[in-house]
């Protein structure tokens, strides 16, 4: 996938670029408004991640520009401001998602994947991981062609795991993905543990290998590797 990152903070940009390239994407970057406009003019991207507070312009203008020339591009806004107004304006202009700083790379990754699925395949593509296959349009999970009954949170959890396979995900990252701001860090740890335990049990019951590995002190990793 071709991704453009527009971000004025160099170290943040570098981390994001490295991460997304490791995920197998072709990543370009722009650190100023002007640079971003040029790149948007010259090339086509599948997804653009844009920080709306740039030193020399408002990222919202880039979104307008993007939408004029390419209807199908996925747009994710990144902002230090958790402002409802900006969020609404951004989404009105045609952005797909809004992420508040600070965010986790796993979260950004999950959002990009979700946007790309919706944009490129109208959400009709199946997500597969070894023996697991997921149809996002009706949120159905199959293992060996057998339906697994998952709760909404367990489904989200599985999707997050698969989007970030082979990565260590700490409990707090998982908690933030599942609950957002509605749950404080402190409450969620053993709660997350219970959710993961239940999900694991349901997957194993259907004859699925135990993909969820615990990394002590770090978190969980979803992998086919032993």
């Amino acid at each position, binding site marked *: 996938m071709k991704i453009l990152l527009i971000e004025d903070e160099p170290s943040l940009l570098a981390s994001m670029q*490295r991460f997304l390239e490791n995920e197998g994407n072709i990543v370009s970057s722009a650190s100023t408004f002007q640079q971003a406009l040029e790149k948007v003019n010259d090339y086509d991207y599948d997804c653009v991640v844009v920080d709306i507070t740039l030193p020399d312009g408002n990222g919202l203008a880039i979104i307008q520009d993007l939408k004029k020339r390419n209807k199908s591009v996925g747009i994710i806004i990144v902002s230090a401001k958790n402002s409802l107004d900006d969020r609404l304006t951004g989404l009105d202009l045609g952005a797909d998602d809004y992420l508040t700083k600070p965010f986790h790379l796993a979260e950004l990754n999950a959002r990009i994947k979700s946007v790309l699925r919706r944009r490129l395949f109208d959400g009709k593509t199946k997500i597969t991981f070894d023996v697991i296959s997921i149809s996002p349009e009706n949120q159905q999970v199959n293992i060996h062609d057998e339906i697994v009954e998952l709760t909404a949170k367990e489904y989200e959890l599985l999707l997050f795991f698969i989007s970030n396979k082979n990565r260590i995900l700490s409990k707090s990252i998982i908690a933030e993905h599942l609950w957002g701001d509605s749950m404080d860090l402190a*409450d969620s740890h053993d709660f997350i543990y219970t959710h993961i335990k239940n999900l694991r049990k349901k997957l194993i019951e259907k004859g699925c290998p135990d993909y969820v590995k615990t990394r002590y002190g770090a978190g969980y990793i979803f992998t086919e590797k032993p």
Partner: protein
Amino acid sequence: MRLPIKTAIYLSLASLFIAFAGVFTLNWFIHKSMIHEIDEILVSHLELVESKLKELPKNQISLLDIDDNPHVEMVSPNINIEPIFTDTTEIDLVLHEPTPIRVLKTTIATPYHNFLVTVKQPYAEFEEIATKLSVGVGVCFLVLIFLMLLLNFLVYRQLWKPFYRIIDKLRAYQISKQSETIFEKESTEEFNLLSQTLQQMTERIGQQFRLQKQFTENASHEIQTPIAVISLSLDSLLQSENLPEKDLMELQKSTEALQKISQLNKSLLLLTKIENNQFSEAVQVDMSKLLENLLNTYQTFAEHREITIFTNIQAYQVLSINPYLAEILVGNLLKNAIRYNQKQGTIHCTLQNNKLTISNKGEVLPFASEQLFQRFVKHPNHPESTGLGLAIVRQIAECYALKLHYEFNAATSEHTFEVSW
């Protein structure tokens, strides 16, 4: 007690004293002058008697007299009494009651005889006039003072009007409100001075306050980016394959601490924004629906902690509020009720007649209940909490003038939060 009443009390007490003292002094003074005048009358009377006596022939030793005044008697020639004034009382012949009398006694020597002459002058009437006069003056004085006070009262109301106008403005003054309170020019110099000084003071405070708010907001925004950088770096470190478990634990601790900073920062920013009234668009929010949605969100969390939630929600309870803040308000109260509940405890959630009540089981607060809504007040058993949740609740309630009330029932060990509008 109001100033005019106090003034009136002090003035009337003082004037009562002055009136009493005045009446007595005046009475004494009039009495003095009256006696002086009477003495003059007696002296002239005596002179008349003396001249009459000196003209008397040798064989006549008495003057024609009907009321024994002057009283003349013959004494031996070697007695010589200098004129002497005395006061005495005699029974009045007409009124039959004792009446004060001034007496002048002296010896008068004529060529033939030596007379002892006594002239008298009753002065009860004069005394009466003196008393009436002094009491009259005292009463007039009191009436005058009373009228003055009455006038003062009326004038006071008019004069102090600007003062109360200024007080009303001060009372309505809210530092967080953007609209500026204007203290107008007053015609009374003193009040004008007060008004202008207050105007300058509030302007200065307002500016300081705005600067501070701006600083908080800017600082919070600026902090988010470095936090994001640290967070991403920590995350990529976490992914490295050959880290020992000990280092992973350290990384995890840092990540969590960082997340807490971020959460604190977000909460503080939210508080500042609410204070700044940056959430302007209030819409009609169906609180019943909102509450049900949030209960749904937190249901699994409550179940996880084996807490039973009892609800009694009246449909379509509407509140005019920013929907995002409404969610935070109710969400924070619910979260609170779950987090500080006992294991296998209960939550009673009622929304009826524009009143939301959320109560949960729990131990008595380890601090005074007035501190509950203050920033950074935490339960010692929950040091990981930000201590801002209820402060945000209060800020939102203040912003929309909602009544927020907390109560602890020791008998059932139940904490109850009530929000009504």
